[in-house]
Structure formats: C-alpha cells, structure tokens
C-alpha cells in the first residue's frame, strides 16, 4: 500500500517565504521588500588597466545609480525624525511688524516653531554676510524665509506654516537693475547705493585706440535669469548628540564652507559641527552655500529629534540662487583687416536680493568679458546691483556664458560688416601661447586656435553648403 505524500497545508502558519501574510497576522507595518542585486564582482576591464590616466573608466557610483541604490539625502531617515517647512514671504520688500506663531504651535503634530530672532547669528554669505537665515526685521525678496515649523509629517508642517500670521509693512521695491542704479531708486539694503560690488580692468589707452580705429561697433546684449534646476531639490537632516555636536546630512557641494557657515550662525566651535553629504543630485552652483541647515539644526535642538527639510520645486526656483541677468554694453574698435584694437565693456549684473556669489561672478565676468582675444587697449567696468528679486549666485560659468554671448555675437557682427569669414576673424585675433590676458597675465597651454580648427574640421565649416 502506497503512502500518499503529505501535501503542504496552505493554511498552516506561514514560513519565511510569505512574510506578507505574517504581517497580516501580526499586524506589522508593511514588511520590507527584497531588493536583489548581483553581489559577485563584475569589474569592467577598463578599471583594471594600468596606467590609469586616460582610461574610459566606468564609475562605481554609476552602477549604484542604475540600481536605484544611491542614497540621496531625502532617501535617508532616522528614528523619530520630524519634517520641517519654511514659510516664505510672498512679498518682495517689506518690514516685518510681527510674526504670530501661536495657532501653528497649537496644532496637533507640530513640535516646534522657529523665527529669525532665535538664530544666534542671523546672517551669512560667501563674501558679504547680507543674507539672513530667516528674515527677522526685513524681507528683501518674495522667496525669503520668515519662519519655520517642525512637525510629525510633511503634510502637518505644510499646513502649519499657513497658520503662521506675519504682518508686513510693504516698502518700495525695485526690480530692474538699470532702475536700481538711479539716484532716486528705492534702496534695497544700504542707504547710500544699490551698487554693492564693482570692478575695473584697464589696459593701454582705449580712447586713443578708438580714435585710430578704422571701424567701431557698438551693441547692447542682455541675458535672462535662469535657474540650475538640479533634479534633486535641496535637502538636509540635522541632529544633535549628547556632547552638543550637531550632525547635518546635506545636499551641499561644499561641506567645508558649509560647516564654517553653520558654526558661525549657531555660534559653535568648528569641531562641534559635522557636515555629511552623500552624492548631490545635481549642483551646478546652486548648492554651494547653506540655505536651511541652521534652521533645521535649531529645530532639532528644540525638539530633541532629527529634523529633515526638503525644498519643494517652487522653493528651488524662488528661494535658492539663480543666474545673474546681465546687461552688457560693448564697444569695439577694429582695423580694416579685422584686428581688434580697442574694446570697452560695461556690465551691469542684476544682483538680486543678496550678494551670494555675486562678487565672484563680477570678478570673473570682468576678466573674461573681453573674450579670448589679443587686445592691447581695454576698459571694462562692472557693477552688481541689488534688486528685490530672487538672489543671484553661482551658476555654471559665473558670468562666462553671458559675456560669451555678447562678445561672440559682436564678433560675428564685425565679421559680417567686414565681409570676413567668422572663423578667420577669430583665428586672426585669438590668444596664442604666451599672449597677455586682459589682466596682463602671460597665458600658458593655450590651445584656442586648435579648438577653432578642430571644431571647424569636424563640422565641415570649409565645405560648400548644400
């Protein structure tokens, strides 16, 4: 007589293979899902070659990106973590009369509220410390933060900031940088002038050179405000330990500077501050200074819990730095064979509500504005002007894309007027090894003409058009 094999009873107590149903039985929260990835090392050949320089080596972090395993700041969570939101002013220029946080504080799920008054040193900035961590007395642009809330969920925090009542006394505002230059313009910050940075580069004698020039070209060029749009919004998580040390996980691309700024605004010694980044999901210059880190640190201190803050996409645009709009006036004198003999440039930078990286942008733009050309007689003056708009800061190129648009547009205008090939006029004027830059520096490793010729060859510039 054969024995029947026992059939597994599906209703018996679950095994490790069906943890989902175990969760139902035990009323556990959702049980984590398995995530599979190959553990056996697959090392691409290129990473094993010597010498290493010049290899098209693949990136180990690239592998993790494709698996979705890279941990960005918003992917991190800590036990007891709260969520913070910042209330934005919504008004471009105002004096803050009062901030009433009582209704927000009374909301269930809200654990702390913070205003600018509570920040030990309420100012920061890479060159001028003119930006408040949270606006305290005055608001300088519509994206300014005026108060912050830490709550059990993001939803509660978002609702709570709506309940914070701020009384503003509107002030006259100025939005156009040329208007801001005028004597009678409303003053954004300091009472004397809206110009907060300026620079001059002078070489040779431009006026004499213009007088000698065969042709003179003048033009004004303008560029717009744009934003970095990193796919990953700004995010940070702050927490303290029992030795008074604050650790901030953050999307900053410059953690040494970030640490200095946090230490300064919180009045802490540097060795009590730790900044940790993971991989930044896109920076392009917008994550080079602190934004919400001191706010989260103070909320964490108040609540005794880790506090996370993640910018909305709207905050990315309105409450983080942008690219300076430029207004550029170019006057160029050339000889009849197309050589540039003199160039005069005036740059006006829309400097937004705060200085941020404007001094650096101004300085670089000034130096680069003459273009990569041998020019003996040069005069460049540049100004950064406050306006009551989103602060303008570091963005890929620090003014270079703006001035390049101007000097290369004018170069083509000159070429067209003289009936010259745009490639030839550039080759005629281009820097060479040892050429003097606008600041009198002897340049080395100059391969500009190589790039002109190579691009032209690759493009087929000399080929007849179809």
């Amino acid at each position, binding site marked *: 007589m054969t024995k029947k094999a026992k059939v597994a009873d599906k209703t018996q107590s679950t095994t490790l293979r069906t943890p989902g149903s175990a969760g139902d039985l035990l009323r556990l929260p959702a049980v984590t899902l398995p995530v599979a990835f190959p553990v056996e090392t697959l090392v691409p050949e290129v990473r094993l070659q010597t010498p290493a320089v010049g290899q098209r080596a693949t990136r180990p972090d690239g592998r993790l990106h494709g698996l979705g395993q890279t941990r960005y700041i918003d992917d991190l969570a800590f036990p007891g973590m709260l969520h913070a939101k910042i209330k934005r002013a919504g008004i471009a220029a105002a004096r803050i009369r009062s901030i009433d946080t009582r209704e927000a504080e009374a909301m269930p799920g809200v654990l702390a509220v913070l205003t600018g008054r509570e920040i030990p040193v309420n100012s920061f900035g890479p060159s001028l410390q003119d930006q408040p961590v949270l606006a305290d007395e005055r608001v300088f642009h519509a994206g300014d933060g005026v108060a912050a809330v830490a709550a059990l969920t993001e939803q509660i925090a978002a609702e709570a900031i709506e309940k914070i009542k701020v009384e503003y006394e509107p002030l006259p505002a100025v939005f156009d940088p040329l208007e801001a230059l005028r004597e009678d313009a409303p003053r954004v910050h300091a009472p004397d002038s809206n110009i907060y940075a300026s620079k001059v580069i002078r070489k040779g004698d431009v006026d004499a050179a213009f007088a000698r020039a065969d042709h003179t070209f003048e033009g004004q060029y303008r560029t717009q405000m744009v*934003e970095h749009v990193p796919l990953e919004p700004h995010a940070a998580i702050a927490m303290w330990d029992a030795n008074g040390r604050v650790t901030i996980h953050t999307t900053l691309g410059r953690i040494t500077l970030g640490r200095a700024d946090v230490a300064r605004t919180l009045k802490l010694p540097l060795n009590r501050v730790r900044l940790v980044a993971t991989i930044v999901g896109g920076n392009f210059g917008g994550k080079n200074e602190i934004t919400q880190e001191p706010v989260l640190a103070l909320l964490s201190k108040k609540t005794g819990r880790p506090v996370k803050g993640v910018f909305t996409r709207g905050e990315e645009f309105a409450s983080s730095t942008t690219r300076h709009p430029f207004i550029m006036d170019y006057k160029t004198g050339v000889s009849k064979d197309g050589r540039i003999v003199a160039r005069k440039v005036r740059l006006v930078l829309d400097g937004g509500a705060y200085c941020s990286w404007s001094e650096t942008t101004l300085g670089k733009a000034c130096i680069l504005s003459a273009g990569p050309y041998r020019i003996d007689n040069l005069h460049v003056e540049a100004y950064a002007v406050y306006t009551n708009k989103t602060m303008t800061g570091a963005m890929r190129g620090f003014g270079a894309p703006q001035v390049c648009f101007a000097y290369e547009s004018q170069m083509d205008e000159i070429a067209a007027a003289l009936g010259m090939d745009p490639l030839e006029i550039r080759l005629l004027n281009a820097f060479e090894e040892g050429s003097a830059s606008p600041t009198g520096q002897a340049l080395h490793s100059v391969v500009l003409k*190589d790039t002109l010729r190579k691009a032209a060859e690759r493009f087929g510039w000399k080929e007849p058009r179809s």
Partner: protein
Amino acid sequence: MKRRGRGIACMWYPIGFTVSANPSAATVKVNEDGTATLLTGTVETGQGSLTVLGQIAAEELGIATDDVHVVSADTDAMPMDTGAIASRTTYVTGNAVRLAAEKAKWILFEAAATLLGVKPEQLEARDRKIQVKGYPQRSIAISEAAHRAQVVLGQPPIGSASWNPPTVAMDPETGQGKPFSTYVYATQIAEVDVDDETGEVEVLRIAAAHDCGTPINPMLVEGQVEGGISMGIGFALQEQILFDGAGRQINPNLTNYIMPTSLDMPEIEVDIVDSYDPTGPFGAKGVGEPTSVPTAAAILNAIHDAVGVRITSLPATAEKVLAAIKAKQAQGTKGLLRNR
C-alpha cells in the same frame, strides 16, 4: 519654410577661484595588499570627480583605477576641500591627491629599496610593481612593498598633502594681476534650422572641440560636454524665470519653466584637443563649466546666418525670433537688424 544656418563661438575660462586661496587637501593610504584608499573632502555632485581623483591616485601609485577606493564627503573624517565649484576639482584637488599619493609612494620606495638593492630615487611605480627605472626586470609587487612597509618596518604608507593654485592679486585700479593659475579654451559650432513662419529654432548638430589639458577620463569629459551643451541650449532658446509686477516669480515650476528634454538635443560631436598643462595633475586642467559657455552664442550666430536677424537678448524664443523676422521683412532691409 525652414532655413539652415551655422554659427561659431569660442571661449576661454579659468580654473579655480579668482585670486583668493582655494586649497584642497587629500590623504592616500596604501593598504597592506597594495590596494589603496583615498580620502577627499570634496563632494561628488555627479560629474564623476571621485572616479577621476581615484584615477589620479592610481596613476601616481602605478596601480589600476579599481585598486583605489575613494571616500568623501564627511567633515569629520576627511580633510578640508574648498569644494566642487569653479571647475577646480580635477586641477586643485587632483594636484593634492597626486601629491598625497606621491608621499605614500615614497614610503613604499624606501621599503622596496633595500630589497631591490638600489636607492629609493632609482625606483618607479608601474603596473602594480615597484621597479628600478631603466631596469624593470628588477622589481617587487606593490603588495610586497606595502606589506613590508607596514608590517615589517612599521611605516604604514600614508601620505597627506594639500595644494593651492598660485595667483597674484589684482590691482584695485587697473585689475592687472594673475588671478588664475590656468585657463581652458573651447569652440562650439552649431547648425540650426529656423522656421521662418513660426520662429522655432531646431538645433541639428553641434561640433564641440574642448581643451581640458590631459583628459583623465575621456568618457566623463564627453559627458560634461554633452550636459553643458544641453544647459546652453536651454539658456539660448528656452529658459527664463519670469516675474510679475510685484516681484513674485510667475513660473516657479517645471510645467512653465521650459528646459531641454531628450527631444531638444542635437547630434553632438565631441573632440578633446591635444593639450598638456604642466601645472596640473598629469597635465590635466578642468572642464565642468566651460562646456556650457559658448553654446548660446554659437546658436544665436547660427540663427543670424539662417534668417538674417540678430537677436541680442536671451532667450531667443520662437516669439522673439518670429517678431524679428517679421520686422525685418516689414522694413525690407538687408543685413543686420537689432532686436531686443
């Protein structure tokens, strides 16, 4: 109808901060088996800097890229770094990394010298070996040298170093000085089609020739060029933050802030021109920002070549281009016509 045009733009761009000190520090530890760990205070922001820095350390130590593990981004555990900004990481942090690796390498040379019967100065690190210059048959594996240094001689091969670009302050009246240690150069040439009935501009292809000194990782340089061009296209044709009369942004969202998608990208041909900068690590300079600098100018020059209108303010949206074309037609003028 569609009209085709082409435009050139070239540029120069500096590496590092303007005059002011912007040092980077690094530490290289060679493990007992000849692999290594690099500690850097920089932060990976997507450009692949950690891979490139690993390649620089590997090159100095004569080992492979995969032999170097790179750790970064913690102010407690890593040395300071001025940051991933101003296209400075390959050049400044790279120099610090190379110097740190060199110091660790010298400890290996001292450990290997007696075994090989030569002075340390006679040695070089190549192909995972410490070998005698000019007589490579006499060599030991780097793992043997590392083990001997740490376990036998009690000198773990660790090297730390920092580097800062040498500059000269600019005169406050004339701006004369040496604000940067090095610069890079590039040219981009764009071919566009402009629809003279709608003003729409399509970028068909771009030839980009870039200087970055020695390309430590050419594949990552290409990635920077392609990414920079996409930002340049957005800057030239699409992107703009708009404000209302009260200074509030009108389009703080990705529905109404137009930026390039996969459909907006042209065919891109990248050439890395031959270049070597003796002040950079193994001749390298940098490339992160320069790639987005000349794109808009090249495209705008191409628009002029295509339809004869000179747009002098960005972005050159379809509306703006069409208005310029119509104004030109109305005036019946040939040649250059300014339009804001």
